[in-house]
């Protein structure tokens, strides 16, 4: 009997899973990873001479529901043109009948992997702000992500922050200029059909909001993503809010409140509070007191305060020891 090396096994696995790209302009290069509905491959777009990521459906799908979801994901992504959202280049069906879409190939690491390399709290918060920007943009277009977690955020080599995996996104209203999404949004509580109907649970345990984990799909709004972002912020801050500055712990607590009404009303509000923390300003989640305000003023204006103290000290010394 001959033992196969790991590399040989990997090649065999890739060959077995490889999509038939013969009738497309793509050439298969490698397998990158696996998502909920399909496998993601690295491919070369031979027309444009660039590398792309191909997401290909690879689960049995007799009803066609999964194929429809994948196409819908591509359609949503295509409408969300934002530097923080991975752009879709193309979508279609392979000769073997499998649905796929091509998107930008992001060379980077997931936020979970990248977080260990971030040394300071401000560095982590600046990444979080970019993440919030992208999600707030999606919300402004009527799209909820519903599966925000460190694994679904990619950090590029130049610090770009990209939100990935919009497979379980929910449309709150039709996307502008997209008639198919109009039908989706008009379909009722959730346009995503099987697997995401009201009562069904989608998302990731530990990151999804209580209402989402109860399957209350019909009533979900931006605050479900606020909750997931709050959990992501907790992760970024080391997982233990008691070890971070009290105002930031208050931001985490407000974002992850069990009651949606107690959370930030929008991702923009959450991001604004994080920005205020970075600027040393009062936070919505952390009521101001005179003592805190004085402490903040001192931290922000230490040199001026010390100069005034030095002046007063000199004045007192002169009053005590000098008689003009």
């Amino acid at each position, binding site marked *: 009997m001959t033992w196969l090396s790991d590399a040989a096994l990997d090649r065999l696995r890739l060959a077995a899973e490889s999509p038939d790209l013969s009738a497309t302009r793509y050439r298969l290069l490698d397998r990158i990873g696996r998502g909920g509905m399909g496998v993601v491959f690295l491919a070369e777009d031979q027309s444009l001479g660039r590398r792309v990521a191909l997401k290909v459906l690879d689960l049995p799908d007799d009803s066609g529901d999964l194929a429809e979801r994948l196409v819908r994901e591509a359609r949503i992504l295509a409408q969300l043109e934002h530097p923080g959202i991975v752009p879709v280049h193309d979508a279609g069906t392979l000769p073997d009948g499998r649905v796929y879409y091509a998107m930008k190939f992001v060379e980077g690491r997931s936020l979970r992997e990248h977080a260990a390399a971030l040394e300071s709290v401000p560095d982590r918060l600046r990444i979080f702000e970019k993440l919030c920007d992208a999600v707030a943009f999606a919300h402004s277009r009527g799209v909820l992500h519903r599966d925000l977690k460190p694994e679904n955020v990619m950090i590029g080599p130049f610090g770009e922050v990209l939100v990935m995996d919009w497979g379980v996104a929910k449309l709150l209203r039709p996307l502008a200029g997209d008639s198919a999404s109009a039908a989706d949004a008009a379909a009722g509580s959730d346009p995503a059909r099987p697997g995401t109907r009201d009562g069904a649970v989608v998302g990731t345990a530990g990151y999804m909001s209580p209402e989402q984990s109860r399957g209350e799909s019909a009533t979900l709004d931006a605050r479900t993503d606020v909750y997931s972002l709050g959990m992501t912020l907790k992760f970024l801050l080391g997982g233990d809010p008691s070890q971070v500055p009290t105002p930031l712990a208050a931001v985490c607590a407000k974002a992850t409140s069990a009651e949606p009404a107690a959370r930030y009303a929008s991702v923009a509000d959450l991001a604004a509070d994080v920005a205020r923390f970075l600027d040393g300003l009062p936070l919505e989640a952390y009521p101001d007191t005179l003592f805190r305000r004085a402490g903040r003023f001192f931290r922000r204006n230490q*040199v*001026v305060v010390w*100069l005034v103290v030095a*002046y007063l000290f*000199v004045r007192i010394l*002169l009053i005590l020891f000098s*008689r*003009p």
Partner: protein
Amino acid sequence: MNKILLGIILGTVLGCFDGATAWFYPETHAQIVEILIGSTIKGLIAGVLIGVFARLVNSLALGIAFGLAVGLFLAWIVAFLQHAHYFEIMLPGGLVGLIVGYATQRFGPAAAASRA
């Protein structure tokens, strides 16, 4: 806040305070009003000069140096007119100039970039 306005406010307030400390010397009580007015005007002049400098030159080090120089110079004039108490008058005067110099560089809109 405008750097010149900031300089005027800071210079005036600190100058006024500087003059008010004369109250702690009983022998000056008879001239306290004149001292207060003179010191306030001195602070105002220092604030205007330092504020204008901060608008023209965007440099923390130069701003502090200029503030210190203006504060010391104006205080020296006051001491010179009295022919006495140079140290007691110039030390706090210099500190006031330094504070106004730092504050006008640190706060308020930065000086416009110079044209090529």
